[in-house]
């Protein structure tokens, strides 16, 4: 009997952890491989400006959706107003630079600070709300900031937008080479990935997982749920504002209808939903699929049948959400795990029959 228990225990340990030493090494090799490819891609695509730009946007939107995921996925608070944080970051550093000549490298901290202040103000009021009510409030917040950007013409340039002069130089955070931008956004994306990985295995991360599933039960175990949610929205807003500042210097033109729009907020959420909410890698996978798809579809149907691209895009989203409701990463992981558990069960059965 003891022998039996040993076998089962041993196999369970392998099945549940799943990551023996060889599996861990394989995992590490895979990650290093992907990293090497990511580092090489911007150089390889140097003479392909079209693909270079797609790559740059994959990195940017991957990073921004990853930041959204910290509050939308990890804390389970579905925000549809994150473009506001993006816009606050973009306009703050952009205005400080164009009007006062302050380097965007400093201005971006101003944007982050302002974004954090807004996040805390909004968070204290709305994070007490459940599910859809919170989502509705964030939409309202996003629209408020968008309208402000349009109406404060004297400052923001209104609907015509804010043009940032092209004067290449490090302190101006303006670069002639697009390769530099690809690397900057890659660094941002890897940074967001790092923060998410840290969350996976940190005290705050465990608290967020708990409160996402059941706020009352989390409170019973001593989790200050409001503080947890505020921390997550603060981190998320700061990173999103940073992304906005960088985008401003990359694009050199800010327009409320784009960089503070509900469309953009939805895009942040959508990329995470498709990729896999609440996982570090999900938003990056989502961005790698969604962003090129959007651009290709627009290019393919843009002039001939406008609107066609949106139809195909919408159709594909519906298919993914129907068949992979948890997102690509989570579904694939679950299926792999199920297969492994089955394999382990098989081994146990065989060994048990041997013992018998």
């Amino acid at each position, binding site marked *: 009997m003891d022998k039996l228990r040993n076998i089962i225990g041993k196999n369970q340990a392998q099945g549940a952890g799943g990551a023996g030493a060889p599996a861990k090494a394989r995992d590490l090799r895979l990650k290093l491989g992907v990293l090497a490819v990511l580092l090489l891609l911007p150089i390889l695509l140097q003479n392909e400006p079209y693909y270079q730009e797609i790559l740059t946007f994959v990195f940017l939107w991957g990073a921004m959706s990853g930041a959204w995921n910290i509050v939308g996925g990890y804390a389970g608070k579905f925000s549809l107003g994150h473009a506001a944080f993006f816009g606050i970051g973009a306009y703050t550093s952009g205005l400080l630079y164009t009007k006062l000549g302050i380097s965007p490298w400093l201005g971006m901290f101003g944007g982050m600070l302002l974004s954090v202040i807004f996040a805390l103000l909004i968070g204290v009021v709305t994070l007490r709300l459940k599910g859809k009510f919170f989502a509705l409030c964030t939409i309202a917040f996003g629209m408020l900031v968008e309208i402000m950007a349009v109406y404060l013409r004297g400052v923001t340039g209104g609907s015509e937008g804010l043009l940032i002069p092209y004067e290449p130089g490090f302190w101006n955070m303006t670069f002639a080479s697009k390769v530099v931008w690809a690397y900057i956004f890659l660094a941002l994306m890897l940074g967001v990935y790092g923060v998410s990985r840290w969350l996976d295995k940190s*005290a705050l991360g465990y*608290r967020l997982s708990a409160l996402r599933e059941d706020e*009352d*039960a989390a409170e*019973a*175990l*001593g*989790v200050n749920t409001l503080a947890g949610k505020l921390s997550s929205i603060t981190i998320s807003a700061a990173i999103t504002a940073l992304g906005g500042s960088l985008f401003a210097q990359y694009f050199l033109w800010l327009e409320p209808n784009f960089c503070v729009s509900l469309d953009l907020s939805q895009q942040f959420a959508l990329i995470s939903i498709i990729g896999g909410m609440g996982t570090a890698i999900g938003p990056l996978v989502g961005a790698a699929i969604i962003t090129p798809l959007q651009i290709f579809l627009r290019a393919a149907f843009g002039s001939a049948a406008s609107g066609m691209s949106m139809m195909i895009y919408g159709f594909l989203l519906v298919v993914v959400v129907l068949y992979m409701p948890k997102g690509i990463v989570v579904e694939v992981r679950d299926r792999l795990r199920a297969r492994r558990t089955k394999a382990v069960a098989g081994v146990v059965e065989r060994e048990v029959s041997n013992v018998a």
Partner: protein
Amino acid sequence: MLLELHDVTKRFGGMEAVKDVDMGMDQHELVGLIGPNGAGKTTLFNLVSGYYPPSQGSIKFQGREVAGRKPHHVTRMGLCRTFQLTRPFTHLTLLENAMVGTLCHCSELKRSREVAHWALEQVGLDHRADDLAQGLPIGHRKKLELARTLATKPKLLLLDEVMGGLNPMEVQEMSATIAKIHAGGTGVLMIEHVMSAVMCLCQRIVVLHHGEKIAAGSPEEIRRNPKVIEAYLGDSYAVAGTCEAGPESASPTGQA
């Protein structure tokens, strides 16, 4: 006094779910809270653990007022409760479930992992520490619920029907576990419908009926109290309800 309730009342609209309840618990006591369904037992738990503010009266834990504090604050003071309907965090492993509890008094992950292992050991679930809490059978879910609260290192545990839905063997196991926790110096206040276990485990029993305390005393006194027999136990219980459970669950100081 570990816990002191004075004149506690909770009204929902015109309905008084809990009415003028006075009760106290000494350090290290194991007290049962019984009564028919709808008697206000769980409401009383919600009041004591900070989920509802009382409409009137005072609730003191170790001499400090509980009313007006958030549940997480009450837990950090050393008073932790379980839920009648178990609420495992299904995306976390059993160990991580327990760690959520340990993190309230220990922010260092390595140390809190050790405490979480200890908590799972107490209920006999440590062999499944790395399994996800998804799809656990009811017996394991009840144990996990208990382990998570233990992980917060409580001075007083409020257990809301931790034996509901368990088979007789699991009930015995659970009784032994509770006796062991109590022997370790933790006060326990438990709502329970499994009378054999309550009568054998508890040093004192409080009976609620229609939100009011109708009796309090030793299991022997409660069993013979005509008011309690009428409201809850029924005539046959006075004869049938003897301690026939195993020796390890019979003794409240428990050596198991």
